[in-house]
């Protein structure tokens, strides 16, 4: 007995819409990507449990404070007293105004260093008062 070939449909996957799908994915990644802007200092972040995500990544300024007591912002190592001018410029930038300051401090530095940064940020005021101490998420 011979089997009949019933199907005469060509078995091809339509590829015409492939570029459209790929472009859609591409556009999603292009929009959602935030490139790393600045290199910081090497720090060992402290642990914490009650952490919050830093939502405003585009309007965030990052200040690094490492174990040796150096402070870095926007690829420059600065003295604490220079922070206010730099941060003030960022707050008053009309295109990309500062919304939050992310503070990446090494867990072994002295609190006095952090207090100096606080003092500078308080001098600037406004959006610079919103700070986020970067931490690692502590496992229970």
């Amino acid at each position: 007995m011979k089997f009949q070939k019933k199907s005469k449909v060509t078995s091809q996957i339509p590829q015409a819409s492939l570029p459209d799908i790929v472009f859609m994915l591409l556009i999603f990644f292009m929009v959602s990507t935030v490139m790393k802007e600045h290199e910081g200092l090497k720090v060992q972040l402290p642990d914490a449990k009650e952490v919050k995500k830093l939502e405003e990544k585009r309007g965030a300024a990052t200040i690094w404070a490492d174990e040796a007591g150096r402070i870095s912002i926007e690829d420059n190592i600065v003295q604490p007293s220079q922070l206010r001018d730099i941060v003030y410029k960022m707050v008053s930038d009309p295109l990309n105004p500062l919304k939050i300051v992310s503070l990446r401090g090494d867990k072994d530095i002295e609190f006095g260093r952090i207090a100096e940064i606080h003092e500078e940020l308080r001098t600037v005021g406004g959006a610079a008062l919103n700070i986020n101490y970067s931490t690692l998420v502590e496992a229970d």
Partner: protein
Amino acid sequence: MLLDKKKKGSAEIPTSSLADIAFLLLIFFLVTTTIATDKGISLTLPEKGQETKVRSKNITNILINAQGLIMMDEEQIDVSQISSQARQMLDVNENLIFSVKAVKGAKYETYIDVLDELKEANAPRISIAEPE
């Protein structure tokens, strides 16, 4: 005189490689995207020169010294007990302000631990005192 038609090629843009180009870009963005988000403890610092008088019964002082010892309301306390202690205090007085005061030589890690404990207790008002 008749001009020869030299061109006989079809005037179509080849689109077959479009997908390849798009994939290449896609892979580039996939690789460079950092999903890892920054996490941390958020806090709002007070405006400079802004001082508010608070009744002393509404303040709990938390002191941190250079040795990493913590004192809460005149009593030495372990870091892990701060949140439960703070929660009990907030039950009694919900307007309580926790004033964290660390000396200059205190470790940043201890300070973050204390803040973390207070956040865990849902303390609504945390104040950071400047070290002398």
